[in-house]
């Protein structure tokens, strides 16, 4: 009942609503414009980053698929997948501990778990670089250090989504399972784990995306030959042109987009979006 009353009244006096709609249209233009322009530029005939595009060509896309760009892309995919895996694995016990037990150090553990979300990833990157150099792990700077750093900053996402799932378990189902003869382990296995599956998946997806799009931490821990795609693009921007960059950029946007679309279809992500405090 509530929304129909509101919308009916809105429609009745469409002035304010129409004004709102036009403002919103402008905001969408502002938000999506640059991305669409980048996509358009990637089809440019000439090598200038001009818009509207002159002519139409796939040649920059060919260049984008050359090893020079494919390798960092694959590197980021590998890094992102492993990050998602380890983040989720480590997040599970944390989420269980935080959401099902009361204990004295709980607040401290919450702070520790959410810490990487609260501080700039830049700082975490700098700190990790210092750690690896100081302790003499220089040879691990590159993939290993990146993996470690990414897991640290992505774990909180997984903890949060698994936590939301645990939090929204129907209240008495575990008691019901117990009353029907299920031991605590069997209750976990047959009732709890299936019911938190969506939280686990969402956590893995958010972790992957956060890792794939990270730049602030990665710039400090990358190494020639072991460079995530975002850092590589950043490096090339100095040289200005190259709609190749535009093509590569579009690819790096499409990949997470497709991933999210698939997961949303299969298991749904909506419940986990609110409360998502990401960092650039």
């Amino acid at each position, binding site marked *: 009942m509530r929304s129909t009353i509101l919308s009916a009244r809105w429609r009745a006096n469409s002035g304010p609503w129409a004004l709102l709609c036009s403002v919103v249209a402008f905001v969408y233009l502002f938000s999506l414009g640059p991305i669409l322009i980048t996509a358009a530029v990637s089809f440019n005939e000439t090598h200038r980053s001009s818009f509207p595009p002159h002519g139409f060509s796939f040649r920059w896309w060919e260049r984008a698929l050359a090893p020079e760009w494919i390798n960092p892309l694959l590197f980021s995919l590998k890094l992102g997948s492993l990050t998602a895996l380890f983040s989720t694995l480590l997040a599970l016990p944390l989420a269980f501990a935080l959401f099902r037990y009361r204990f004295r150090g709980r607040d401290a553990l919450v702070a520790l778990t959410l810490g990487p979300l609260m501080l700039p990833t830049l700082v975490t990157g700098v700190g990790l670089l210092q750690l690896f150099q100081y302790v003499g792990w220089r040879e691990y700077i590159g993939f290993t250090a990146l993996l470690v750093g990414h897991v640290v900053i992505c774990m909180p996402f997984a903890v949060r989504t698994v936590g939301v799932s645990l939090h929204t378990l129907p209240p008495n189902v575990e008691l*019901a*399972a*117990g009353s*029907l003869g299920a031991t605590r382990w069997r209750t976990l296995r047959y009732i709890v784990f299936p019911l938190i599956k969506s939280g686990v998946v969402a956590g893995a997806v958010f972790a992957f995306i956060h890792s794939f799009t990270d730049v602030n931490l990665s710039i400090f821990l990358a190494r020639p030959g072991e460079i995530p795609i975002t850092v590589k693009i950043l490096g090339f921007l100095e040289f200005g042109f190259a709609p190749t960059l535009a093509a590569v950029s579009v690819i790096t946007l499409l990949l997470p987009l497709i991933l999210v679309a698939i997961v949303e279809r299969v298991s749904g992500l909506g419940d986990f979006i609110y409360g998502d405090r990401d960092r650039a």
Partner: protein
Amino acid sequence: MLEPALRLVGIEKHYAATVAVAGIDLEVNEGEFVTLLGPSGCGKTTTLGLIAGFFPPTAGAIYLEGKPVGDLPSFRRDIGVVFQDYALFPHLSAADNVAFGLRMRNLPQAEIARRVADALELVHLAGLGERRPLQLSGGQRQRVALARALVINPTVLLLDEPLSNLDQKLRDEMRIEIAGLQRRLGITTVFVTHDQGEALVMSDRIAVMNAGRIEQIGEPAEIYEHPATRFVAEFIGRMNFFSGQVTTAREVRTARGLVIAAPVPLGIASGAEVHVAVRPERSRLCRDKPDAGLALKGTVRQVLYLGSTREFHLDLEGGERGLVEMPNDGSAVTFDAGAGVWLAASFDHCLVLPARS
């Protein structure tokens, strides 16, 4: 003498700031349907949880079929529980929900399938086994919860206000159905509710609880006709109360000098303050002062028409209030608001109860 199926001795449950259960002794015989009846917070649900083994008692012992359960966790007690919110497993079909307890007992697949089919049949859900809880109505979910608890053939069936989430009509239907089912299967049952109508209809015995204790336990008629305390009298049905003082073993005198001839329970001394209680449906209204029995003068404040009965809310002399319920038997005799009347009742229908301590 046969061992009772369930026995609670001195059961207590204390939490940090409150005492949920202050001392319960209860025996439930095999096949009996006992209801724990009381307002929210009286400890009835906690007691059920203690029987089920969801948490341990602070004091006291519980015996199932004569054997102490001690610290046994709930999955080792032979019980079946129906929760107020049904607690169905959302990711399993109705049939899989019902089968769960049997799976946990590692029974062979064929037997599980057979028993599940029988159980669904029993609760009139045959054919709906493949549906998920989300696709079922509230009443259907309730039946699945029932089937799930019954199929494992528990020693004791525990029901925690299973009907409170249903609408009135469904509730009335399910009351009778559950009671009938229980009688047919002969399963010892403990039922928790705050709805006295349910308790009266379904139970072999009712234990009325208040503040963590059982105030009175007995058959429904016994509880209704002969409540032992004001709380029980008020909680079941409605009651008129008039205060007075005991003069002799068979007499109570009200503040306005009216003498009521009704038996005074043992243990109440002469001079003690008491309540005289009369059911509204055992009272009637008269235009003139009745010759014998309880007679209180007053005016009609409000008349409520309920179809099969009429309720007359009265303001009595002396400031007390009265309620009289008279059947709508089609006679022309009735009273309007503002009319001066007499509330009349036979002394035989007056109960003397101790004043609240």
